[in-house]
């Protein structure tokens, strides 16, 4: 939403986003140098960010929003590399679609590319070495990465536009009512669809997931047997 965020806030979010992107590019180069077979995996997980973030879907609030697709990439490559892919998608949408804009790009990268994937990655790390089913882990990580993207969007807007009565808190709840509530059904469907996609990655290329230590070998073998 170009023009809807005051200049000072645009600068704040850009300053947070830029170092993360630089670190992401460095990480990306490191991962690609270490294992060329990681590139196709990046193609799949990044491809889903392209696809899912272009789908504007209707929701219970009577308005439309789009899923983010960032969770899968966050699980396989971590949040920083994911933020680089997101930045590419968001730049495309800013330049050609008037969806977002160059001044608010920093804020959008923070919500969709950094905090969302970080939350997804944190959940994945938390559940990875427990007995929780691999696909349940993927579902929770991807659905919550999607949800938190919009919670952060609400947070960013509420900081810039605190309500006259009640200030930041009231604003935050009002923006959450628009962005986060709309997102709930979308996040659930996205989580299930990406868990299904993960099943196909496990079926076709289990060795890359083991080699990159996304899940342990025994977890992948168990995951191939079920679902």
């Amino acid at each position: 939403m170009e023009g809807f965020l005051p200049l000072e806030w645009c600068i704040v979010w850009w300053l947070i986003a830029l170092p993360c992107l630089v670190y992401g590019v460095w990480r990306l180069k490191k991962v690609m140098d270490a294992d060329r077979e990681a590139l196709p995996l990046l193609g799949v997980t990044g491809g889903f960010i392209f696809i899912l973030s272009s789908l504007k879907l209707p929701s219970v609030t009577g308005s439309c929003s789009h899923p983010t697709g960032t969770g899968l990439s966050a699980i396989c490559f971590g949040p920083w590399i994911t933020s680089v892919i997101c930045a590419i998608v968001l730049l495309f949408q800013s330049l050609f679609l008037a969806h977002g804009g160059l001044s608010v790009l920093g804020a959008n990268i923070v919500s969709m590319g950094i905090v969302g994937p970080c939350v997804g990655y944190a959940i994945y790390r938390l559940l990875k070495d427990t007995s929780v089913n691999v696909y349940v882990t993927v579902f929770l990580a991807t659905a919550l990465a999607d949800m938190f993207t919009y919670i952060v969007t609400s947070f960013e807007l509420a900081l810039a536009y605190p309500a006259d009565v009640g200030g930041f808190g009231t604003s935050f709840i009002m923006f959450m009512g628009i962005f986060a509530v709309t997102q709930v059904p979308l996040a659930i469907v996205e989580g299930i669809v990406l868990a299904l996609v993960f099943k196909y990655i496990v079926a076709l290329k289990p060795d890359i997931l083991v080699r990159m230590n996304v899940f342990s070998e025994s977890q992948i073998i168990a995951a191939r047997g079920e679902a």
Partner: protein
Amino acid sequence: MAKYMLEILALVAILAFCGLFLYTSSTMEGAEFAGSDNVGSGLIAELSGKPLDSFVPLIPQYEPPSGEIEACLFALQAALGGIFVGGVFGYWLGQKKSLTETKVN
């Protein structure tokens, strides 16, 4: 878990999502299904007390001249993602196949 558990779950979820949309669009009054961005812009205008028109891009921005062109560009983005995904799955499938074939030979 059953063999096609996730496929069935995904199908059910998508069908439920469609059902939810049909229910919402038929019962909710004034549901326009505009982008939540637009609804959010309305709230920003309300909170800041400035009219919606007064928000102009800080950096000049290209805007698709019509909904058709916007849809075209969004479809292009999705297609690009689809090419990546389909290409890689095909590459992996071929790799797997040639691997099993060399084992047999």
